[in-house]
């Protein structure tokens, strides 16, 4: 089997030389680390790498905002593609101007992210592995076994570490509000650290509940190691159970919270 990096470089090269795209967005080694890169010519591609996972959807959006007519190739893992789809639903990216290079994740990566869909809709590179449920994580199971008071104590402990850096929100691809409610003094008192977390954390969790695509970048960005994805994975499961809906699956499918009960019913307990 061909080395995935080689294969990606090949495909990206084809897109560039064929003139189908003006640039390919991926990762490259730079300054001793790895960061997003816009590859313009076939020669640059030798520095293209695939790891570690990096949220390219946000970068894609920035590039499109600046260059709305540019055609962009993007290397997308499952979560990147889902992020782009959710962004497209909210008028943040133009999917028609994107050529996606689908990269499937490995089994180890799927377990690490507790991901149900570690692959994009079309896989160009890599082999599809089955996703896992969030309960594969022992910590998630533990949380579910606890009573309300214990859970509250747990989250109280975790959220008290928050330094209100907004890293979670900034990294999140589906947090697209230009003016964020978490910076509105009506909801979150300015100058208070840690922030009143019912206002901050709970509101953010509710806001992304029907949009979260499970990329895990929030937790990766958090300097205080707050286990955000432990909560969000459960919320995603709930959305799946209540509405048979998954964010990022279909650009034509609006959030169930936006539709009527005829369009997206609330499944009764027996139906879930």
């Amino acid at each position, binding site marked *: 089997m061909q080395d995935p990096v080689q294969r990606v470089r090949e495909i990206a090269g084809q897109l560039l030389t064929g003139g189908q795209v003006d640039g390919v967005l991926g990762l490259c080694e730079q300054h001793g680390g790895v960061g997003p890169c816009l590859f313009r010519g076939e020669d640059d591609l030798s520095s293209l790498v695939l790891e570690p996972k990096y949220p390219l959807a946000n970068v894609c959006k920035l590039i499109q905002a600046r260059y709305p007519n540019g055609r962009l190739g993007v290397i997308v893992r499952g979560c990147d593609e889902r992020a782009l789809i959710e962004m497209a639903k*909210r008028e943040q990216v133009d999917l028609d101007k994107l050529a996606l290079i689908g990269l499937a994740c490995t089994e180890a990566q799927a377990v690490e992210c507790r991901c149900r869909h570690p692959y994009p809709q079309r896989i160009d590179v890599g082999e599809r592995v089955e996703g896992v449920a969030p309960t594969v994580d022992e910590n998630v199971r533990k949380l579910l076994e606890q009573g309300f008071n214990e859970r509250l104590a747990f989250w109280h402990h975790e959220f008290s570490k928050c330094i209100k850096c907004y890293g979670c929100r900034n990294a999140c691809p589906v947090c697209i509000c*230009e*003016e964020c409610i978490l910076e509105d003094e009506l909801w979150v008192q300015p100058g208070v650290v840690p922030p009143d977390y019912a206002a901050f954390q709970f509101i953010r969790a509710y806001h992304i509940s029907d949009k979260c695509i499970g990329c895990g970048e929030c937790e990766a960005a958090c300097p205080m190691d707050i286990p955000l994805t432990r909560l969000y994975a459960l919320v995603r499961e709930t959305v799946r159970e209540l509405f048979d809906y998954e964010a990022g699956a279909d650009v034509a499918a609006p959030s169930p919270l936006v539709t009527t009960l005829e369009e997206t019913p609330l499944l009764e307990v027996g139906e879930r």
Partner: protein
Amino acid sequence: MEKAHISRSQKLAGDRQIRRQTAGFGNPARANCDLPRIGVFVCHCGNNIGGVVRVPEVVEYARTLPDVAYAEDNMYSCSEEGLSSIKESIVRHKLNRVIVASCTPRTHEPLFKRACEEAGLNKYLFEFVNIREHCSWIHMHAPDEATEKAKALVRMGVAKARYLEPQEEFQSDVYPAALVIGGGVAGMTAALNLANQGFVVHLVEREAELGGLLRGVNKVFPTYEDAGEFLAPLIQQVENHPRITTYLRSEVESVEGFIGHFQVRVTNGHREAEFEVGTVIVATGAQEFKPYGYYGYPMLPNVVTPLELEEMLKKGFEFPRNVVMINCVGARIAERPYCGRFCCTAALKNAVLIKERDPRAKVYILQRDVMAYGEHIERHYRRAMELGVRFIRYSLDRPPEVVGVRQAREVKVFHQLIGKELTLPADLVVLVTPLVPQPDSEKLSRMLKVPRGSEGFFLEAHLKLRPIEFATDGIYLCGSARYPSNIIESVSQAYAASAKAATPMRQGFVQVEAITAFSDEHLCTGCGTCVLVCPFSAIELRVGENGQKSWVNATQCKGCGSCVAACPNGAMQQRGFTDRQVLSMVEALVSS
């Protein structure tokens, strides 16, 4: 359209703060920037409130609240005396917010609002606190608790009042012309009714002639008038009416706008017509369900639908001796669970017609319940039975079988009530099918932004309370477009729809209550969530100098607030129910 920012973290914090402050409610009518001077008027309502709640104590308490400039109690706030006192106090104490704590706003709110206006205060600077229905009357045996609750409710009212803003109700004018889509009996009746009241009517009909489904009918029930003769005077009146413009062989291509000003484009394939109307009536009717694949239709030439039978009857040729009608074909089944309503009537009509013409004819009606409601239809049912029409009940799990190779010869049916299979000779088999929605109803529904029900027919605003209009203002509905209707029902509905349409046109304007939503451009991200949530399609995304932002059509907005709760960052707010107003009420409750 280039977005000005590169990333959130690069924006200056101060810049953002300023934007949030000036954004506020985004309402340019925020004329009153003075500190609030709230007046609180607590009503005894005779003994109704005063007998349980210690009103003077509540007044005392109100005086201690910040921003309350004046408080008093009234025996009956809604009396002449009470209202005068409020008006005088507004002037004397320079009050710029008024709270009345008494009964439910659903009774007297307009009264107090008018009093405020008379005293020179914008009526939206008024807040009602319910301490009767929601307090004294339901806690009659707990005066201490009721008094504490009254205080808490007043405190919450004061908290909201601080953030009330003056609002202007505006009147939106209505152009006195109507579009009627569909020239059947419903459409023509509606058009004439409006034209006779002095309104200009544009009647658009897809076919080459007016008349709709009735053109294909032989005799109408129950009078057995010739359908053509029944229609002729109606058509003549429509065609000769000076205020009705009829567009034949034409279709509506687009309808833009909202009540009072709909911009309509009609085309007949060669030419286009454009005009403006104030209201729209949907009278597009329905079409007969063609039962392809059922009982040998259409291969067997003597298996026909009801309209095909009407055609045969109109031509008046030699009539077959053995007629078998199968009711509920394609109706009341899993794919189409509804009842076609008048197909039984039509079947009875023709069964009686055939028998009266030729008493020796054998007519069978195979049925799964006969819908013979009301007086005429029931009477006809009996007449049919008296004439010898045989009714055989069959069940859906053992449907009849039409036997014949090049044509139908007999029909086998399992008689559900006697439990035997019968073989009926058949020279003609009539498959009685229901009406189904028009093929272009989806296109029309999207064009007008009006909903269709699960069956595909148009969906009225409320089944009982608003049966011939849509939730979208200015668009009305009648006839089989809404649900298969017979002539009587279609005509009644047409009168109702045209009467409803006439109201705003006659008045000349519609008044919009100022509890509508509005979007702050500086905060809006243009994500479009609000557009999807609005049940009235009152919001759209518009490209402005700041990019694509949401915009609420205040004439269409009904003030439900769905969009506000759906908006993730508070860009969308509702006048009179802003986040700030409600959160301050929550805060007031928590701190009491």
